C-alpha cells in the first residue's frame, strides 16, 4: 500500500471518512518522509512538529463531529514568505532570520480554520526572487527527480516537498512564474489564480502589482479544492477581489468537447526550447484534440517584450517594498552604525543576498530621476500591450496552451553566474503575471533526461474553472505515474 503521505488530499479525506486513516497518521507519515529525504532535498526551513501534532488532534475532533471540510487533516506546507503567527517566517533571507510574525497570513487563517495541519515552512529564493531556489540565504533545494538539478523557483521548496511526499499540499507565490515553473520542474500541479483571487494579507511582499499566491498539489482535483479553500474577498487586502468564489470542483469532469484551444506556436518553435519539452507539449495538444477540443494556432505578439517589461516593473516595486528592511522594527540589524543612515546601509548590505541587492539596485536606478519615463513608464505601456494580446486571443479561444518552461530542470550552478540566462527560464510564465490572468501547470510527460515536463493552460480573468476543467481532462487522459526515482532508491 502507498504511504499516506503519497496520497492526494481527496484520497486522504476519503480515508478519514471511512476510518482507514487519521490526520495524525497522515501527518506522521509526512514527518517520516521529511526525516528520510529532506537531508538531501532541503525543502524545509522549519518543520513545525508541535503545532502539527495539536492541529492533527483538532482535525480528528472535527472529523468525529462530522464537521470536516475537504482541507480537514490535510498536511500542508507554506512557503516561508507567508507569515505564521508565533512561527519563524524568514522569506529565505538573513535579514528576516530572527523574524517571528505577530499574525497569520489570511490563506493560512482559512486553512487552519478548516482543520488543515501545518507540516512546516518551505525554502525559497530570498524574497521570492529567483527561478532555481539557489538564492535562498540558507541552502539550495535539490529536485527530488534528480538531486543534481534545481527544483525551479522561487517556490522550489513547496514544489519539491509536494513531489517528494513531504507534504500533501503546499502554498507558494507566483510573481513571474514562481509557482508554475517549480511545479513543472518537480512534476506536480501548480495553479496561479487571477490577481486578487487569494488574499495577500500576511504575504511578505516582493512586487505588489505582480504577486499572486498559488497552490501546489499532486492532482488537478486537489488544486480546485485548495483554491476553493483559500480564495475569496478579504477586507485586510485592498487588492483582493469581491467576486464570489464558485465551487471549482463543480464542472471539473465536464470534458473539453467543443472547447476552443489556442496553441502559442511561438513558444514551441522558439530557440532554447528543449526538444523533449516540445514533444511532450505537442503530444498533450493532440490528446486535447482527440478528446474533442478544437485546436488552432494562437499568438501573443508582445510576449517577447514581456520579459523586458517584467525586469523593469518587478525590481522597481521590489526596491520600494524592501525599503522597510531598515534594521529598526524587525529582523536583523548590523552592529556599528555611526548614525541611522549608516546603520540602515550596513544592515541592508549585510542582510540581503546577491540577487536581492541586484534587483533593488536595478529598481532604484530605473525609478531614479531622469530614467523613470524611459524604463518604468515604457514597461507599464508594454504591460498594456500584453493585456491587449490576451484580450484579443480570448476572443477566439477559451484557453491558451503551451509549455510552462522552455527546459526541464537544469543543473545546480548552471545559471547562477548569468542573471539574464536565469531570468529567461520564466519567459512563458511572466506574461500571465503581467496580465493577472489565471494559469495552471500540469505534468504532461517525462523527457529523455528523466525529468518531468510542464504543460501550461491559461484562461480568462476569473475563469479558473475552465483551465481546471481542461487540465483535469488532460490529466485523466495522460494518466501519468509520477514518482520521483529518489523515493524508490531510498526505499520510502
Amino acid at each position, binding site marked *: 500500500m502507498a504511504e499516506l503521505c503519497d496520497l492526494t488530499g481527496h484520497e486522504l479525506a476519503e480515508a478519514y471518512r471511512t476510518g482507514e486513516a487519521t490526520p495524525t497518521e497522515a501527518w506522521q507519515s509526512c514527518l517520516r518522509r521529511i526525516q528520510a529525504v529532506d537531508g538531501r532535498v532541503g525543502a524545509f526551513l522549519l518543520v513545525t512538529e508541535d503545532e502539527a501534532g495539536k492541529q492533527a488532534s483538532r482535525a480528528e475532533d472535527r472529523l468525529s463531529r462530522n464537521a470536516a471540510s475537504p482541507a480537514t487533516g490535510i498536511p500542508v506546507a507554506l512557503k516561508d514568505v507567508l507569515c505564521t503567527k508565533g512561527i519563524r517566517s524568514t522569506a529565505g533571507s538573513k535579514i528576516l532570520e530572527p523574524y517571528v510574525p505577530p499574525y497569520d497570513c489570511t490563506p493560512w487563517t482559512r486553512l487552519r480554520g478548516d482543520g488543515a495541519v501545518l507540516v512546516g515552512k518551505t525554502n525559497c529564493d530570498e524574497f521570492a526572487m529567483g527561478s532555481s531556489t539557489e538564492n535562498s540565504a540558507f541552502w539550495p533545494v535539490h529536485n527530488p527527480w534528480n538531486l543534481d538539478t534545481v527544483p525551479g523557483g522561487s517556490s522550489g521548496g513547496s514544489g519539491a516537498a509536494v513531489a517528494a511526499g513531504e507534504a500533501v499540499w503546499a502554498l507558494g507565490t507566483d510573481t513571474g512564474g514562481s509557482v508554475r515553473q517549480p511545479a513543472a520542474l518537480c512534476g506536480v500541479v501548480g495553479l496561479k489564480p487571477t490577481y486578487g483571487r487569494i488574499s495577500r494579507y500576511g504575504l511578505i511582499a516582493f512586487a505588489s502589482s505582480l504577486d499572486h499566491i498559488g497552490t501546489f498539489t499532486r492532482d488537478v482535483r486537489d488544486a480546485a479544492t485548495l483554491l476553493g479553500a483559500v480564495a475569496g474577498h478579504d477586507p485586510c487586502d485592498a487588492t483582493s477581489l469581491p467576486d464570489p468564489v464558485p465551487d471549482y470542483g463543480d464542472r471539473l469532469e465536464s470534458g473539453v468537447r467543443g472547447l476552443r484551444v489556442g496553441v502559442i506556436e511561438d513558444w514551441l518553435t522558439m530557440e532554447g526550447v528543449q526538444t523533449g519539452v516540445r514533444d511532450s507539449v505537442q503530444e498533450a495538444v493532440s490528446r486535447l484534440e482527440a478528446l474533442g477540443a478544437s485546436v488552432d494556432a494562437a499568438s501573443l505578439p508582445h510576449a517577447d*517584450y514581456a520579459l523586458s*517589461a517584467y525586469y*523593469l516593473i518587478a525590481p522597481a516595486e521590489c526596491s520600494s517594498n524592501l525599503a522597510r528592511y531598515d534594521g*529598526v522594527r524587525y529582523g*536583523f540589524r548590523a552592529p556599528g552604525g555611526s548614525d541611522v543612515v549608516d546603520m540602515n546601509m550596513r544592515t541592508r548590505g549585510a542582510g540581503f543576498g546577491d540577487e536581492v541587492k541586484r534587483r533593488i539596485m536595478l529598481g532604484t536606478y530605473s525609478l531614479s530621476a531622469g530614467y523613470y519615463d524611459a*524604463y518604468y513608464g*515604457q514597461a507599464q505601456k508594454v*504591460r498594456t500591450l500584453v493585456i491587449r494580446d490576451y484580450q484579443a486571443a480570448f476572443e477566439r479561444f477559451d484557453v491558451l496552451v503551451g509549455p510552462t518552461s522552455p527546459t526541464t530542470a537544469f543543473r545546480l550552478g548552471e545559471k547562477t553566474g548569468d542573471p539574464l540566462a536565469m531570468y529567461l527560464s520564466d519567459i512563458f510564465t511572466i506574461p500571465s503575471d503581467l496580465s493577472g490572468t489565471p494559469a495552471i501547470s500540469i505534468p504532461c510527460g517525462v523527457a529523455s533526461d528523466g525529468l518531468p515536463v510542464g504543460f501550461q493552460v491559461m484562461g480568462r480573468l476569473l475563469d479558473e474553472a475552465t483551465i481546471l476543467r481542461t487540465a483535469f481532462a488532460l490529466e485523466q487522459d495522460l494518466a501519468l505515474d509520477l514518482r520521483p526515482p529518489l523515493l524508490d532508491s531510498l526505499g520510502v
Partner: protein
Amino acid sequence: MPVEIDVDHVARLARLSLTIEEKERFRRQLGVILEHAERVGEVAAEDIPPTSHPIPRSNVFRSDELRPCLTREDALATAPEVEDGRFKVPRIVEQG
C-alpha cells in the same frame, strides 16, 4: 551597448553598503540587463496608456469599525533594539 550606471549614486539611494567587488559586478550585470530591458521602448508608442495594476480598483475602503490591533508589546517584540516602549535607533541628528 550595455548601459553605464553610476553605481555609487544608486547604492546610496537604495541605502545599500556594497563592497568594491559587488559594485564592479553590479555595474557590469546591470548594464547588460538594462540593455535587454531597453527593448520596451521599441513598442511602447505615445498613445498607449500605462498599466499599473492588472485589475484596477479604486476607493477600496473597509467599514470604519473599532477592532483590536497589535499591542505595543507585540509590535516591539521583533525589534532589534527597544527602549522605554519605543524603537531605538542610532543618533539621527548631528551633535552640535
